[in-house]
């Protein structure tokens, strides 16, 4: 058991070290949602508020609406950043070293996932603090109540990152991941606009949004922030999280990892 904890501790410490040494990553993790909150929201029907939809009990400004979506966006980007670091590890050869550790593969990947979630949750709280300073806040209890939702959503999105990292061959391909994963996942969700509004424009896009697990991660965070509970969101996020993680574990077989291990990049 001690071996497990030592490995867990080492992987988390490595991720934290990597995060703290990359100030640019932390800064961009905060600046990205702040740009959405302060610039995009200001220009996008911020003034007259939006209609009441659960879990809100009254009218809210657009900034207030997108706040949970931006928290989920941080977790999504963080999950992808973690997957980027795994691709980097694979190129540098340290991935092979990690996966040859005398511990089950799932434990190593779970430790990696936990480390990523921890970093992601820290980023979300830093962002919420900044947002509150700009006058966009949650109900006081919401700051505590969103924690379990952030962890669960963070696991699901981190597992998605793990899965993607098992499919991406090279660092250069990460731009493709940005274009074909992050943006569609983010925009085709309830993060920036309520689904009923999407339905007004396109029934097809509405259904795409409705089957996007990211939508449920956003709603799980949104409902928790307002002391409400969305069992449907929880169920979908947990199930998809388990599926993503399961597929990642399968994808990270030693044979596959070996096949892809290329050693240090020649470029």
């Amino acid at each position: 058991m001690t071996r497990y904890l030592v490995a867990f501790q080492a992987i988390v410490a490595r991720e934290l070290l990597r995060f703290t040494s990359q100030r640019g990553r932390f800064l961009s993790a905060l600046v990205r949602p702040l740009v959405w909150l302060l610039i995009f929201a200001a220009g996008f029907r911020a003034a007259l508020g939006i209609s009441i939809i659960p879990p809100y009990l009254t009218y809210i400004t657009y900034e207030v609406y997108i706040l949970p979506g931006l928290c989920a966006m941080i977790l999504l980007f963080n999950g992808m950043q973690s997957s980027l670091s795994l691709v980097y590890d694979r190129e540098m050869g340290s991935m092979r070293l990690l996966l040859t550790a005398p511990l089950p593969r799932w434990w190593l990947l779970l430790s990696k996932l936990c480390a990523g979630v921890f970093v992601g949750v820290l980023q979300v709280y830093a962002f919420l603090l900044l947002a509150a300073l700009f006058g966009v806040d949650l109900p006081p209890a919401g700051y505590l109540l969103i924690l379990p939702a952030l962890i669960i959503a963070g696991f699901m999105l981190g597992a998605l990152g793990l899965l993607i990292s098992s499919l991406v061959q090279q660092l250069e391909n990460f731009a493709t991941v940005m274009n074909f994963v992050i943006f569609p996942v983010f925009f085709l969700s309830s993060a920036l606009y309520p689904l009923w509004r999407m339905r007004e424009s396109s029934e097809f896009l509405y259904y795409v949004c409705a089957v996007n697990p990211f939508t449920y991660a956003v709603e799980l965070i949104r409902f928790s922030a307002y002391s409400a509970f969305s069992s449907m969101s929880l169920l979908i996020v947990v199930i998809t999280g388990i599926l993503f993680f399961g597929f990642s574990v399968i994808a990270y077989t030693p044979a596959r990892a070996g096949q892809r291990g290329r050693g240090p990049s020649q470029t």
Partner: protein
Amino acid sequence: MRLLVLFFTFLLASVAHADRIFVSNERSNTVTVIDGSTWEVLTEFPAGLRPRGITVSPDGSKLYVCASDDNLVRVFDTSSYEELFTLPSGPDPELFVLEPNGRRLYIANEDDNLVTVVDTQTKEVLAEVPVGVEPEGMAISPNARIVVNTSETTNMAHFIDTETNTIKYNMLVDQRPRYAEYTSDGTRLFVTAEIGGTVSVFDIDGDGAPTEVGKISFQVAGVQPEWLQPVGAKVTSDGQWLFVALGPSNRVAVVDAKTLEVEKYILVGERVWQLAFTPGEEYLLTTNGNTNDITVIDVASQEAVRSIPVGQQPWGVIVAPGIN
């Protein structure tokens, strides 16, 4: 003896009820009743054609509703919601104000440029006071000596002496004055001007004479100035806070009634029109005409806490105190 105590406890419990909120719905021709503690809609009953102005008797037992297109005031029992009687009002009654003792009702007749004075007991018209064009806003000084009427087209606040039923003072205000509101000590009066986008502030001397002391303007980032249309207004009984409904800007402005500085804007439903406090001034209620709901504002935190769907195009709101 114990049985007797139990019986009376049961009796008291059975008559106890929470504050009831009454909302006049201009388009659905109804009044919606909401429980003031659970915020649940209790019922919605017919209230004549185009119900707008709404108030309750000082004892909370009678509900007065201006049925504008019926050209009369309908009076309902606040417990059974049954119509008790009607009062003559003159044509197109829009807003009215009840004397603090509940005896006389002063009604603005929008189409006839009159304020009609009606005795609520004899149900007779006592006087008709000619005022400016399109009278609307009505307020009464706490000592009941002056009734203020605002006329939308004349852009004036008319100060009517309630002893003689004649105009004693006229004050010019900004375009389309909609509503007037005295502080509870009667030393200050606020008059909202819808098109002018301002609230005129008057100090009132012992004789009821007004002196203009300031004007409040509004500005909300991202909202066009012409949408900032002050309509209903309410001031807290300690005279500290003035709340102003800003119509199509979907905001209620919170104004420091002493410094006349706007402190905050609270987002509510669309076309916020009239306001009412709950009896302890714990909450402020707003009617939102275009979104067919009312918004409940927590007065202490100055935050909107919930919105409740009502009938079509809610116009006025009033609260009948509960029995504890």
